[in-house]
């Protein structure tokens, strides 16, 4: 047995031992608040067992292991339906960025460990009503105020903000220079005076995203995580990390096995649907696509382990996987015919075609829309010309709204 197989075995045993307390059966019927509370306890148990911050340095409370161990654990964990969704963004982007860019090391370490234990949660406050894909078009502003800053404005689509203790945020500190140049990156205390969070209900019925309003919120200069005017670079680093978090070739929907099962269980023209050519074709194509994505991910992890830079093909993951999840879920519903109408909005998206289908559109928008990802691939990887951008080089305050 290789070391990695031994690691997987041990992880699996631990997951099995705690699944009755935290796994999908234990979570059925819980309210979001109850599930979050369970999630915090799970996160603590995971910390105690040494499965948090697997590939982070030991100095900040991590395990000092490699990416392979991390992805191995994630792959096993995924099968149990544990309540970890609340910590995905927090530990995925803001906290790693904090580790890298926060100057106050003791404070940083305290925060990181609290986040690993699930005691504190961080959100990512980038998008705004006027700046989603066009992140640098954001309008929330901060002005110097003594030895600190005063911030006002509005963010939107902030995942889990209503449960967060801290956030990382990009704001405009100089409107007189071109849009990318006048931005600065801070961390912000979500409980500070002047911060107001309003949940937004999504099409699927839940409300995990929020509008966040800042009314004259005080920031100390020590909360600044980039040079003044150098915020866009740090934001891009954050987004680069984000892309590597998305390594689920099912596009965060059901595994292909579930589709095969559905097709075996259901009759089509008096035979199991699995015998129908159209269904077999859908399965085969999805399998080939997902296998390719899995292989890309595995290779990327091995390269990172070996100290090499993984190739840019990793950027295909979210783009391709979520689109295919949307279509496959539609077909899953088609296969069930009238039985598909019965719908449980609280069913897990990874094990139910209805909820997977209804929530799929968010996946094609959040974390970079399809179109923006395609632009990035075309321009950054393939060297195709950039779109015409009339606002290029124009001082922000002279761009027509």
């Amino acid at each position: 047995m290789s070391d990695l197989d031994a690691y997987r075995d041990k992880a699996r045993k631990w997951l099995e031992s705690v699944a009755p307390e935290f796994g999908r059966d234990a979570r059925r019927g819980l309210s979001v608040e109850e599930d979050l509370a369970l999630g915090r306890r799970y996160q603590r148990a995971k910390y105690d067992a040494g499965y948090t911050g697997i590939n982070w340095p030991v100095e900040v409370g991590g395990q000092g292991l490699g990416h392979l161990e991390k992805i191995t654990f994630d792959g096993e964990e995924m099968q149990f339906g544990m309540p970890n969704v609340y910590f995905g963004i927090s530990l995925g982007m803001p906290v790693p960025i904090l580790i890298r860019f926060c100057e106050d090391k003791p404070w940083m370490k305290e925060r990181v460990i609290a986040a690993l234990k699930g005691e504190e949660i961080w959100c990512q406050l980038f998008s705004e009503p006027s700046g989603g894909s066009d992140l640098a078009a954001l309008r929330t502003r901060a002005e110097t105020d003594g030895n600190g800053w005063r911030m006002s404005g509005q963010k939107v689509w902030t995942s889990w903000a209503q449960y967060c203790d801290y956030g990382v945020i990009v704001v405009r500190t100089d409107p007189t220079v071109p849009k990318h140049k006048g931005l600065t990156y801070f961390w912000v205390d979500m409980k500070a005076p002047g911060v107001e969070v309003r949940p937004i209900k999504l099409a699927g019925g839940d409300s995990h995203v929020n509008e966040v309003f800042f009314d004259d919120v005080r920031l100390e200069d020590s909360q600044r995580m980039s040079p003044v005017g150098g915020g866009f670079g740090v934001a891009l680093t954050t987004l680069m990390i984000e892309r590597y978090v998305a390594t689920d070739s099912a596009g965060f929907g059901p595994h292909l096995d579930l589709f095969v099962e559905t097709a075996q269980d259901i009759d089509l023209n008096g035979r199991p649907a699995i015998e129908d050519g159209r269904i077999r074709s859908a399965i085969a194509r999805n399998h080939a696509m997902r296998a390719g994505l899995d292989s890309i991910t595995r290779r990327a992890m091995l390269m990172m382990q070996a100290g090499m830079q993984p190739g840019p093909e990793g950027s295909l993951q979210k783009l391709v996987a979520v689109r295919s999840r949307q279509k496959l879920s539609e077909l899953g519903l088609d296969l069930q015919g009238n039985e598909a109408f019965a719908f449980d909005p609280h069913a897990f998206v990874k094990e139910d075609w209805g909820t997977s289908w209804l929530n799929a559109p968010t996946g094609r928008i959040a974390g970079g829309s399809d179109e923006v990802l395609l632009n990035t691939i075309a321009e950054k990887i393939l060297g195709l010309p950039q779109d015409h951008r009339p606002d290029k080089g124009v001082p922000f305050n002279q761009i027509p709204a």
Partner: protein
Amino acid sequence: MSILYDEGQQAIATESRRVLDARTDKARLLGLLEQVGEFDETFWNTAIEQGWTALALPEAYGGLNLSLVELGLVAQATGAATAGAPFLNTSYGAAMAILHGSDDSAKSDWLPRLASGDATGCVAFAEGSSPLPPKPAITFDGMMLTGRKPAVPGGLKADMAVVWASLGGRPALVAVALAEAKREPVSSFDNARLYADLVFDKTPAQLLAQGDDALVLARDVLARMAVVTAHEQVGGAEALLFIARDYANERKAFGQPIGAFQSIKHRIAELYGLVEIARANCIHAAAQEGQPGFAVAAADARLSATEAYDTAARDCIQIHGGIGVTWETGLHLHMRRARSLAIEQGNTLFWEDWLVDELLKGDAA
């Protein structure tokens, strides 16, 4: 029947749109999603008042003696409005089954009431994944119906159902009053469609057709409902097309309207193609009513309209970015309706098979 709309037909199209614009309320429709067993009574009262329930039924039974063309035009308007009641399709389907069936008392019992909108009907053919099972599990014996039909559109509130059943091992079409049947509401992703499991236990019913006649009649009813539904799908898809176009003109990113990006512009142009092909198929199918090529035309309309509406729902949300996936904006009303209409009256797999079977028969127009 012509494939050019005459003045009267155009007036129906404009008027039904106007009325529905005035009386549809997004907040009300969103509210319906969160309740099981409620439908949009404002819409249904409008339908009755406007005579839409009577449109395609014969004068002898209180109908207006118009055709699938006119009903289709109204269905397009209701599709655009995501109107919250399934009866425009289902009552029509039930009425057609009775009208072309062999039981005269069923005609006098139900047709005048379906035409006036006093009664609502539904059509219970599907069993699970099969829209028209060759051997229905539900049985009709001694003029009584026994068994269960799952997730029948309109089943929760309809007064009567036309049921695809087995009679001595052969298929039969029967009409049954639902007053004495048991209904189990189905909590759905599109609750305004009033899905319910219908459970019969020796419920008295009227025989409309049996054996091969039943199959011919059932397929005709399904094809007719599919054509009405296809119009509804086209109405929804077209509404989304224009919502997307308007948003792409208004929303700016990188210093210009997002409609200037080819990926957005082309997506909307592709939608236009899907909508117009589906619409053309709908017009053709409605004009073929009662002709030999009707089944094929209905399948063409059904397949292209399903593709148009599902694609429009996906793309319109995508074009809106984050705002498109919010509850308030309500694009998911269309997304949900696109899916429920795609499955009611047979999914894509079923209609693909149907179409190819018809082509193999060789009597396609």
